[in-house]
Structures are given as C-alpha cells and as structure tokens.
C-alpha cells in the first residue's frame, strides 16, 4: 500500500504541470477560440481523449488510470478545460465507437471532440422515464428518410445543440424492447419545437422537444432497426460510471467546515458547538470512507482485481453524502437559507449559495436514473438478488 504516486507518475505530473504553465491561463476561461486551441494541444500531448483513436481526433493512449487521475488533478488545479462537457463526448462518442458504422464514426466523432457540434440526448419521454422501453415517439421510414413524430423531455441544453441522438419506436408491432431504433437527427429543421423547462432553481437546464414530421436520412441509424434498446444501454453504462467523484464531496466538506468557522450559533462560532462538531465528524466519516473506497477501487482496477459490489454503489453513496451536507449546511447558514441564490459564478454571493448545493443534492437523486433504480442495480448486480419481473420503482 503506497499512497504516493511513485517517481514515474510524479515526473509525469511535473510534465503536465509544465505544459499547463506554458499553454494555459485561467483568464482564457471564457474565450472559445483559446479553449479550442488549448484542447488541440492537450490532445496532441496525450492528455485528453485518451481512449479515442487518433484517426478520429483522439490521443489513443494506453489505458493508465493513474495518469488519467494525475491529469484530472492538475487540470483541475490549473482550472484548465478538459474534454468538452455535454452528451456528445460523454455518451454519443462511446456509443458510436462501440456500435456506429465507420462513416458515422468518421463524420461525427471528430467535430464532436473539437466541440464544434453539440448533441442533445433524446431518451426520456413524459411516459417513459426510468422505463425507457416505453418510448412512444414514432419513426417511419418513408423513402430514404425517417419521419419522426412525438415528444422527448429532459434533454439538457437543447437550444444549443445541433444534433440529437434519440430512441425512436420504428417497429410498432415488435415486443416493447425490440421495437426501438437509435437514430441521429438534425435539430435545426422545421417541425422541431424546443421548449425550455424551468427548474426548481428558476434556471432552465432542461427542455421538452416536440417532433412534427421531422426528417433524418435512412442511414442515420446506429446499429440495426429494432436494436435501439441495446445500443442505448451501452451509453447508459457510460453515463452511470461518469457520475460521482469522491473529490467533489471532499471539497464540499472542506467548505462546510470553513462555513462552520465563519457563522455563529447562540452567539458563538458554530465550529465550537459540540453538536455541530459531531455532525461534521459524522459526515466526515462518510466522506473519508468514500474517498478511500474510490482509491481502493481505482487501485484494484489498475491491478486487474475486482473491487467487488461497492463499484455499483458509488452514485448512491455520493447522493447520500450530498443530502447530509445539504442538511448541515442549512442548519449552519440559518436565515440565509431564506434567500434565493443567484447563479453568478462570482465570489460575491453570500452563504445562500449553499442552497444551490441543496437543490443540487435533490437533483442528483433524480438524474441519471433515480436512487431507486440505483438500489435495484445494487441489489441485483451487487448482491445477486433476483430480478423482479417489474424491475422498476423509480419515477
């Protein structure tokens, strides 16, 4: 057991750090041109898109979880941009790499990596949340085009997306799971109506999208007709593993301790209150356990060993920690919880910013499969309990 990274990785860290010092300044954070150029250079050096072939614009590096970890640490510290956020890089590219036709890979992956095109996710519908196989949006092949009618929901950032990848029912007579296809389509066409959904926070991050005779070429299908369910599950796997990092919670926890030092209770600093100390330490137990649990999983993966059932639990562990932090933060900020936080990224915002963390902790329990879906996965894959015929229970 050795928690240092070892000489090789520390050399690598110096290399990354030097690169960042040379090629990046946090002042460029809102300059898309600089960002694109920086990403190009970072990819050339093998720091970004490590598991994507060079021919598609990736850096095609051998798998090395520790290098990836060092890169993430140093980029975070330098506040430098990593891979572009969004569904394109996170979900569509892995799906195309696994199931896409060669022309699809060549045409869509490179500009997606360069951040030139953004993708909306078209999975959920008002009647199909956790239960994606209930999708009702229909696609009909008319000549050499799919004609699509229906509605999607919970697509994030759709206003800014040029394309969508979507689950569409193309085989209405087939059994539920075998009637879907995975289609790509251009959102910038007549018949597409995008309606922002305002969220609990007052911000609008998600949309409803309505399709009225929307068209896409016959070969903009990933996998075969009726294989959409399986193709989408390849992506869901990527989505699930992408959520949740112990580092986030460690940082939140450190800020929580700072908060307890700053605020007063009963006329004294909250940090001196034995009740607050106990609650902080209680949360710290969970946070530190999660931290070393993820270290353990990471190391075991590197060593080719199976980290066991805990690997199914990371998201739920994080969700619970987020709840605990939100509850104590509300206690600490007191009357500031009555104030609606603004969403500016500046530093002038008061303690009510913790209410963003509160709403975020609520959202995490819902996003990417509700906590009930997570519990099903843990019970079935982690603990080996039998699948239920009705496998649901989320919302």
């Amino acid at each position, binding site marked *: 057991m050795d928690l240092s990274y070892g000489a090789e990785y520390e050399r690598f860290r110096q290399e990354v750090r030097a690169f960042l010092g040379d090629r990046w300044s946090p002042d460029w954070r809102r300059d898309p041109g600089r960002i694109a150029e920086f990403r190009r250079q970072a990819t050339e050096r093998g720091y970004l898109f490590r598991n994507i072939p060079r021919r598609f614009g990736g850096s095609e590096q051998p798998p090395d979880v520790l290098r990836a970890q060092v890169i993430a640490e140093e980029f975070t510290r330098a506040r430098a941009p990593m891979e572009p956020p969004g569904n394109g890089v996170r979900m569509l590219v892995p799906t195309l790499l696994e199931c896409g036709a060669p022309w699809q890979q060549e045409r869509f992956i490179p500009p997606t990596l360069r951040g030139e095109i953004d993708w909306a996710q078209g999975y959920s519908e008002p*009647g199909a949340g956790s239960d994606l196989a209930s999708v009702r949006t229909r696609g009909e092949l008319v000549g050499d085009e799919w004609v699509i009618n229906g509605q999607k929901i919970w697509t994030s950032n759709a206003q800014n997306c040029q394309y969508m990848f979507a689950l569409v029912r193309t085989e209405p007579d087939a059994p539920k799971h075998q009637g879907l296809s995975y289609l790509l389509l251009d959102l910038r066409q007549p018949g597409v109506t995008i309606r922002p959904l305002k969220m*609990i926070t007052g911000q609008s991050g998600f949309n409803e999208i309505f399709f009225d005779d929307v068209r896409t070429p016959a070969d903009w299908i990933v996998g075969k007709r009726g294989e959409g369910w399986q193709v989408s599950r390849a992506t869901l796997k990527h989505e699930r593993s992408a959520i949740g990092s112990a580092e986030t919670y460690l940082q939140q926890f450190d800020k929580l301790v700072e908060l307890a030092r700053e605020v007063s209770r*009963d006329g004294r600093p909250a940090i001196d209150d034995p009740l607050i100390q106990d609650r902080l330490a209680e949360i710290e137990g969970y946070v530190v356990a999660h931290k070393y649990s993820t270290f353990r999983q990471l190391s075991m993966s590197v060593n080719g060993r199976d980290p066991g059932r805990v690997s199914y639990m990371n998201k739920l562990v994080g969700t619970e920690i987020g709840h605990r932090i939100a509850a104590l933060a509300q206690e600490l900020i007191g009357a500031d919880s009555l104030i609606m936080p603004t969403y500016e990224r500046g530093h002038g915002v008061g303690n009510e910013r913790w209410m963003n963390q509160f709403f975020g902790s609520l959202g995490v329990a819902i996003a990417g499969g509700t906590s009930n879906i997570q519990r099903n996965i843990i019970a079935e894959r982690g603990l080996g309990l039998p699948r239920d015929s*009705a496998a649901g*229970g989320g*919302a």
Partner: protein
Amino acid sequence: MNFDLDEQQTALQNTVADCLAQQLDTPRLLAVVNGDDGHDAALWRTLGELGVFGVTVPEAWGGTGLGLLEAALIAEVLGSRAAPGPFLGQVLTALAIAEGGTDAQRERWLPRLARGEAIATLVLGEPAERWQPDEWTLPAADRLAGRKTHVLYPWLADVMLVGTAGGGLMLVANGEGIDVERIPCLDPTRRLGHVTFTGAPAEPLAFDGARLRDAALVLLAADAFGGARRCVDMAVEYALGREQFGTVIGRFQAVKHQLANMATDVEPAQGLYWYAAHAFDAVAEDAARMAALAKAHIAERFLQAARGATEAHGGIGYTWEYPLHVWVKRAVFDRAYLGSPTIHRRRSARLAGWTSAA
C-alpha cells in the same frame, strides 16, 4: 377528556380548505410564484370575507374571538395549499393588540385587520440570527432607529409589530422613518424584506415578545404539518397515476414502503401541533416548550417529506411548472424562520430544566 375539534373548529377548517381548493389552483398559485409581489390581493380579500383574519380578534371588534388553536387549524390548511401572503403577522398582530393593546389601538386596528383591509406584519429578526426576544437589540423608543431583518411583506404592511431590546413589542404604523429593502426570496409564497427604522414613531404594546414568538412557532408548525401531509398526498397521487414498466409505480413495493415511511413520519405530528396550540391557549406551563418542540419537530418532518416527495416524483418534481417545488421551498422557510430546529430543541431543553445545575 376530549382531544378533538368541536363542530365550529371543524367547520372553520373545512370552509377555508374548500375555499382554497376552489380558488387556489395550480395556475393561480404559479401566477403568485412568478409574480413580483408574492401576494394575491383578490385571494386575500376572499379570505378576509371568510373571516380568516378575524379568528384572533374579539367579537366586539369584528372578529370571532377564537384562540391560537383555531388560527393554527387555518395555518395547517394554508400550508397544505401553499397559500401565499402575510397571514402569520396578520393574525398574530391582531392577537397581540387584542390582548395587550389600549382601546384606542384596538379600535384603530382590529376591525380593519379582521376584515383584511389593513395588513400587519411581525418585525422580529435582527442580523446574525438574532431571532429570539432575549437577543433583540433594537432600542425601545418613541421613535425607532435600527435594523430588523427578514420581515414578511413589509411593503404591504399598514402596521408593524416590532420586537425591541428586552423582549418587548411596539406598534408602528407604516409611514415616515421606515426603509424597506426587498430581498430575493427562496420561498416565493412568503416574501421578505429587511426594514431599517430611521425615527419611525412607535407606540408601546403590552404584550410579551416571547409569547408572541411562541404563537408564531405554533403557526409555523401548523403550516409545516399541512405542507408535509400535502407532500405525502402529492407523492401518493403521483404514484397512483404514473405508469412505469407497465404498471402504476404505486404498486412497486419499494415505492409503497417509502411512501408509508414518509406518511408515518408525518402523521402523528398533527397531535403535536394541536397540543402546542392548545397549550398556548389553555396550559400556560407547557406553552413555550411545546411551541419550541412542535416547530423544531414538524419543520424537520416537512423538509424530509418535501425531499422524499421530490424523489418519488423524479424529474417532473424538479420542474417549476409542477408546483411541488413550492412546498420544498416552504419547508425551507418553515425550518429557518424564527430559528432552526436545533436552536429550538436547545431552548426546549433549557425550558425543561435539562441541566445538572437545576
């Protein structure tokens, strides 16, 4: 022994419930939520006509002369429907004036307050969490000068009931020497502003600030109970209507048990707020402690139920147009306003004499 509501109390609660069920539908609630003022003047008038604001006003001044229990029964219904507006200060200012005011003060304010034609608000909090009467620092004076915080709808108020150093209360008619600063509010149905007094004329009122605080805690507890139960109901209703995997999700055992746990956490609290209100009216030695315990306990139940209901709804519960978020935010309000649960549990412990020094 009869720990049950009498016919008049039941009728009162039902009347208000029916009125709100008819009038305050989701579009109307969202209109207030999206509005600048967080107030629905027409609804306020309707409630005034129903006699909601006269509940603590003696009959001689146009009210029904009932007690805090009746006010709390109404607060439960308002909480259940997420009714917006300055109800809290309205009935408690009336209560304080009725019990502690001079005849001139009563004459001037009570009839108009009872009808809802005048609006009253409580001006209690001070910066740095100084919610409790023994923490107030604003000097009592003929002309007030100093800052008070987190006042409900001060811009609407015709009269303010102001807590002063030493735990006393003073009456201030809105007018000169009052600066109001509106703040962005998390709860869109209970809007707040800070108030700075710069020489506002004030009259003393012979009503104990601590007793006023206790009454406010009871009403917040009642509001929280109404809200919490409504969250359970919304989650149940959603589970009965929402289909997943070919069946309503309310048939999934995990969902059923989560809802059962939520309901079981919430339901007994009805007895707690009833008793806290009853104690305020009739059992002096329990009043302060039960008010603290009820507010602490029920506000936590509400927040937990609101959180659970959101999770039970999934994505839709996170949107603005589905009104569940309003209850989430009311839960945050009921929890924080006038002091957090741990603060009131600590007060309750002191009131119970839980110390080796005693």
